Every structure is written in C-alpha cells, then in structure tokens.
C-alpha cells in the first residue's frame, strides 16, 4: 500500500518534466520562446547523448564482457521487482478461478468471468466506487489549488532564512505516517480533543468531528491538506523560480500592479505544471490513498469511508473470498491503467511531456 502512495508522489514529481525545461537557465526573450527553444535544445542534447553513448553495435559476447558488472549491479533490484511485482501480477489469475488456499492456484477450478459478473452486481462495490470518485472530485476542487496558493505565498517571503524555516516546517507533515496524522487530528478535533476541551471549558457541549459521516469528506480533505499541501509546493516553487524576473520588471514599469502581474505573469508561468499535475491526478482518480481510509473506516462507518482499496481488503481478508477480491483489485487496476493512458494522451495533446515519452 505504501507503494501506491509512493508512486502517487512519483507521478507528481515526474510531472516535473516540463518544469525541468522551465528551471533550465533561461536566456532572454519572451517566456514562450524561451520554453520552446530550451526544450528543443534539451531534446537535441538528449538525442546527441544517446547516439554518442550508443556506439556501433558490437557482438553480443564483447558487450557482455564489457557490461557484465553493470548487469550484476542491476540484478538484485531486477530480481526483487520480478519476485514482488511481476510474480503477483501473474497471481491475478485467481480472479478467474474459484480459488481456495487449501487447493492452491494450480488445482483451483477456473470459473471464467463469474467473479466479475458478481462484482458488477454488487451494490457495495459500486458504493465504494462512488465514494472513491466523490473523494477524488472533492479533493480536486478543494485540495488541488492549495499547494499553488501556498507556493505563491511562500515565494513572496523575501528573507531567505525565514523562508527556508517556513518551508522546512510545512514540508514536514508529509513525512508523518497516516496513523500519526489521524492521531493528531483526533487529539485536536475528536470527542476528547482540544476543540471539545475548549468548548467544555466555556460551558458548551463538546463535539466530535472525527466520527461524523456527514463531514467526513471535509475531514479527510483537511487531513490531506495538512499532511501534503506543503510538500506539494516544491514543484510549483521550482516553476516560480524559473519565471523570468525581467517580465515582472517590464510589466511593473508599464504600470501593472501586484495582482495584474500575478494574473498575467505568475499564473501563465505555472500553467504547464498545473495542467500536467491536473491530468496526472485524473489518471490517478481511483487512488485516494488506503491507510487514511482504513484507519477511519470504523469511526465513521462504511457508508462514508469505504473506498475501492478498503473494499478489496474487507471483502477478502475478512471473509476469505480471495478470488472475488482479486477480481475487484484487477478491475480497479485495469480501469486505473486506462485512465493513466488516456491522461497521458491528453498530456501529449496539450504539448506536455506526460509521465512517459514514446522512447527513451
């Protein structure tokens, strides 16, 4: 599960592709020209590098003699990924079986697509899907802009030392575990938490914001903002740092005020990164994180907190319906893959790099 989150981060960070072009030392000229020319330049450099690093093909044995230490070095990582990624990938065949751990994968009977049929008729599966999509949509509106605003705010802090300290503090919660984050929130907002404590001191009833399903969306979004919005600014800060300061000066001389400059220079400068991250988030729509919901599912109930990942867990590991859970996981994975491919297509259409390029 941790991997899911890490790859989530990864995709965001990988999205720095275009920001890379932005952060490369910009020459003079209008931002568009700069961007196009540097990206072209970097591409040609990359190509040049590739062709020069790719000497005329030598026979296999001679390459093996030259490269065996490199292969040896890659072996442990490749082996681990093979064993813990590709082998379980094959293990997904149990989604087409009536799998029983006592019989084993080899001897369990194949039952075709029955698991998938049941799944599509399962109301709780659709509830979990709707919850997941609802959370994604809500966070797209209320979480996504926060790091952008925060980055602009941080960027406006003039004193470098102060800025570094603030950055250090707001990045930090990203490194806390979800157990810790939920615990801290419970200590602040829960029935015995700080808010209730203050209310009771002043003669009111305490309130428990941690167990109310009606505000669960707000709660998880608040937690996500607290944990990750600071870290999320990194990529926007890099893009901001790459905006040509002369543009600000020129427009200020022309009489553009603070807000005008933000609208006409800062936002256009951030646009490529924003579009890219937006597309990536859409491609990742079915992943809202697992532990956060796993930890709070009991407190607010299944109706509000069941997402696809927790659905798979509860439907399988608590009942032993392995094949059914694998089928649900497979559906989620395949739909997710499709979304990523679509998102990447859209990214290319927008002229962005996307998460992968056609060739490397």
């Amino acid at each position: 599960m941790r991997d899911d989150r890490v790859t989530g981060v990864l995709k965001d960070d990988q999205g720095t592709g275009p920001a890379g072009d932005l952060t490369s030392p910009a020459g003079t000229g209008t931002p568009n020209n700069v961007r196009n020319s540097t990206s072209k330049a970097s591409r040609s450099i990359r190509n040049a590098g590739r062709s020069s690093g790719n000497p005329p093909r030598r026979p296999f044995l001679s390459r093996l003699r030259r490269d065996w230490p490199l292969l040896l070095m890659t072996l442990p990582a490749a082996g681990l990924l093979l064993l813990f990624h590709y082998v379980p990938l094959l293990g997904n065949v149990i989604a087409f079986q009536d799998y029983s751990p006592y019989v084993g994968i080899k001897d369990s009977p194949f039952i075709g697509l029955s698991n998938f049929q049941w799944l599509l008729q399962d109301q709780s599966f659709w509830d979990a899907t709707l919850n997941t999509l609802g959370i994604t949509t809500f966070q797209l509106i209320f979480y996504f802009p926060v790091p952008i605003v925060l980055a602009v705010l941080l960027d406006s802090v003039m004193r470098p030392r102060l800025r570094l300290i603030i950055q250090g503090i707001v990045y930090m919660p990203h490194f806390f575990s979800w157990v810790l984050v939920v615990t801290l929130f419970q200590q602040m907002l829960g029935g015995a938490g700080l808010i209730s404590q203050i209310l009771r001191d002043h003669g009111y009833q305490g309130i428990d914001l941690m167990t109310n399903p009606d505000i669960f969306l707000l709660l998880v979004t608040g937690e996500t903002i607290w944990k990750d919005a600071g870290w999320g600014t990194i990529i926007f800060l890099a893009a901001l740092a790459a905006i040509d300061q002369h543009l600000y000066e020129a427009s200020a001389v022309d009489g553009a005020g603070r807000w005008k400059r933000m609208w006409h220079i800062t936002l256009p400068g951030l646009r490529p990164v924003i579009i890219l991250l937006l597309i990536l988030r859409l491609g990742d729509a079915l992943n809202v994180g697992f532990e956060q919901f796993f930890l709070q599912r009991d407190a607010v109930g299944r109706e509000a907190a069941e997402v696809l990942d927790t659905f798979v867990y509860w439907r399988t590991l608590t009942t032993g319906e392995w094949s059914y859970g694998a089928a649900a996981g497979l559906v989620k994975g395949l739909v997710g893959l499709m979304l990523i491919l679509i998102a990447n297509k859209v990214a290319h259409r927008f002229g962005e790099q996307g998460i992968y390029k056609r060739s490397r």
Partner: protein
Amino acid sequence: MTASTSAARAARPAWEERPSPAGRAAKGTALTLIVASVVFPIYMVVLTSLSTQETVTRAGGLVSIPGGLSPAAYKELFAGGVVTRAVLVSLGVTTTGTLISLVVTVLAAYGLSRPGSLFHRPLLFMILLTFLFGPGLIPNYLLVSSLGLIDSYWALILPSAVTAFNLVVMRAFFMNVPTEMTDSARVDGAGEFRILWRIVLPVSKGVVAVIGLFYAVGYWNSFFNAVLYLNDNSKWPLQVVLRQYVLQGQSLVVGQTSDTIAGQPLPPSLAIQMSIVVLALIPVLFIYPFVQRHFTKGVIIGAVKG
C-alpha cells in the same frame, strides 16, 4: 537553485512597490497560522507527554501551558513491555530495510545509468512498467504467505525494498555525473564497482541522503504491511502500537518486566499516549533537518531529468 533565487530576491527590486500595511499584515497572519497549524499540535503533544498527571488533569486534556514536568511516562514505556519492544522492532526494520534498499537502489541506478549497455532498454522498461500497474493487494498477500513470510519481519522489508521512483531519480542523477570523470577512471583501469564507489557516489551524497530518507521514512511509517503480514502481536512495530493504544485507546500493559508485578491493564493515561506519539515522531524530527537542504536540489532536479 533556491539559494541563488533567494539571494537574487533578498532585496526588493526598485520597481516593486512597497506592500501595503494591510497586505503585509494579511500575509503575516496567513503564514503564522499555517506554521502554527503544524507546530502547535506537535508542541502540545510533546508537552503533554512530559507533564505530570496533575497538570494533565488540571488542563482537562492536552496541556498547552507548561506546568509540572516529569519524565514518568517515558520511564514507564521504556521499562520493557509492548512499547519498548515496538520501538526496537521499528528501529531494526528501518535500519535493515533502509540499508538493503539503498544498496540495491544505488547499484541498479548505476547499472542502468549507461544507455547502450547490454539489456539496458529491456531492464529499464521492466522497471518503468511497474509505475503503470500494481499487482494488487490480494496477489501480493498470497505471494508473501506462500513464501512463508507471514509473521516474519522480512515481509515488512522485501516487498517494498525497491521503489521504481527512487531508482529512476537516482539513475537520473548518476547519468548527470560528467562522463569525463568516469571515462578517465576507466582508462586507468578502474572497474565499475570502483568507479561507483570512488567517483560517482562521492558527488551524489545529496541524492543518496534524500532517497535514504524516503526509504527510511517509508519503513518507519510502515503500518498496513504489519497489519497484513504480522499476526503475532508481539512483533508489532510502533505504528501499529500507536494505532492500537492511542487511536483506539485500548488497554495497555506497561512496565511488564519479569520482576515487577504484572501490570494492571489500564487504559493508558494521556501522558503515556502522547509519549507514544512522540516516539513515532522523533526520528522524523531528528533526521529531517539534515536532509532538508538537499530537497530542492536532489529531488526536483533528479525527477526532472528522469
């Protein structure tokens, strides 16, 4: 990059208008609130964990104004028992795991840093493909259990030992090391391992530190894998203990060493609960400042080139 920009922006350029007092106040308030939202909860948790029972009772919950201080909660936790063991487990898993992950990642990142080498493309493709499609919870679980790793600490380490993202970032960094340096060493007859150890690693300390932090934090924070793979609750790492005794408020047997009277299962006091929170927090708080300065340099640039 950050340094140069902040240096460049340290002084307000002549063309920029002075901010209005209201604007300055708004900005100051916003930043203070944001920083406080992170610092204040941590401050209260630390303070409560160090407070005497009377102070906690008087405050009616979390302590925000220092009163009577006492390290009693920590003494109790470290008297042996569930929490002591959990801390040791977490430390062990984190150090072992980080070491393995770093070694494997560094080696592979270097092994894949030379385009045109034998099997370079298929191997890279195999690693990048893991981004697109995860195998899913159930097949993972079945694999780990069929390897006999249930109730083994290796179940917390091996499945997540290599993260493709970290590998790609590090590889991008290694590819940036000037080829003149490595080539001349090769002419002098140095082998690949030697080049990696003597030339590439010394100039890549920043990225190794950041990736190391990522791995270490991942292991330290690992919660669900432990829930999934460890049935034996004497093997629980700290995060699971934190959830059990603080988030869910279950009774905790503390100070249960062989020569004291078996501890009475009581709901843990707030100070004890908060000191468990602090224990989960401390490694991050301590390691973090040393690595922070590498963030923009190591991560952004690395990810960009990836």
